């Protein structure tokens, strides 16, 4: 299944191995792994909690993969996103793409991450020394997504 939303951690090597297994056409695998930082907007982050919109999240991630496959000549795409409580250094998100050559896989992976950042219904709440706070969306994420709409 190319989409997973889960509380549990995941094994990067095992996921990549499964994604390309049995497909000798694959010459490139590009992955993006997002991890929890211990600092955001000048505050220490002790823990964070990820909330999502069950039902819509799956639809949004499926749409991301559908669009990536329509735009680039890629074979497989995988998105794993964790929800629930997470600590600094924890893995949060994995996007992985296989293709014959690296160019298509790099572009598709970056597109999928930019799309996920602006369209998938996840929200981060950080626990800082000053109290809990919801993370604000970044204008730079919208700008990153807008690049893909121009071409």
């Amino acid at each position, binding site marked *: 299944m190319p989409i997973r939303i889960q509380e549990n951690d995941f094994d990067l090597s095992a996921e990549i191995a499964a994604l390309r297994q049995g497909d000798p056409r694959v010459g490139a695998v590009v992955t993006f792994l997002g991890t929890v930082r211990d600092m955001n907007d000048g505050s220490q982050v002790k823990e964070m909690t990820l909330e999502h919109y069950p039902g819509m999240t799956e639809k949004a991630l499926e749409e991301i993969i559908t669009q990536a496959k329509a735009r680039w000549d890629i074979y497989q795409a995988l998105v794993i996103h964790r929800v629930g409580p997470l600590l600094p250094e924890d893995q949060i998100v994995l996007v992985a793409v296989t293709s014959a050559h690296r160019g298509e896989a790099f572009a598709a992976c970056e597109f999928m991450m930019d799309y996920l950042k602006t369209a998938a*219904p*996840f929200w981060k709440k950080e626990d800082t020394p000053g109290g809990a706070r*919801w993370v604000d969306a970044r204008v730079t994420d919208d700008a990153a997504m807008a690049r893909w709409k121009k071409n």
Partner: protein
Amino acid sequence: MKLELRFFASLREALETSQESIDAPATVKTIADLRIFLVQRGGAWAQALAEGKALRCALNQHMVDANTSLQEGAEVAFFPPVTGG
């Protein structure tokens, strides 16, 4: 018109509500109309859903803009801009 409302993240906390079934009056035809109708409840609703607040909306679990028309039985969600990844 019967609607299923959903609220997430900071908006859910501000409203102290994650979901609600309502029967909206006939004047509520679009998502923008629904937002105005909810603001008229006053208190936390007026504050959290005020016109200047950056909110996103989804109709039947697809992100849409506020001019989108509502249909009977639709699931309508309001939430702040997303921050996953």
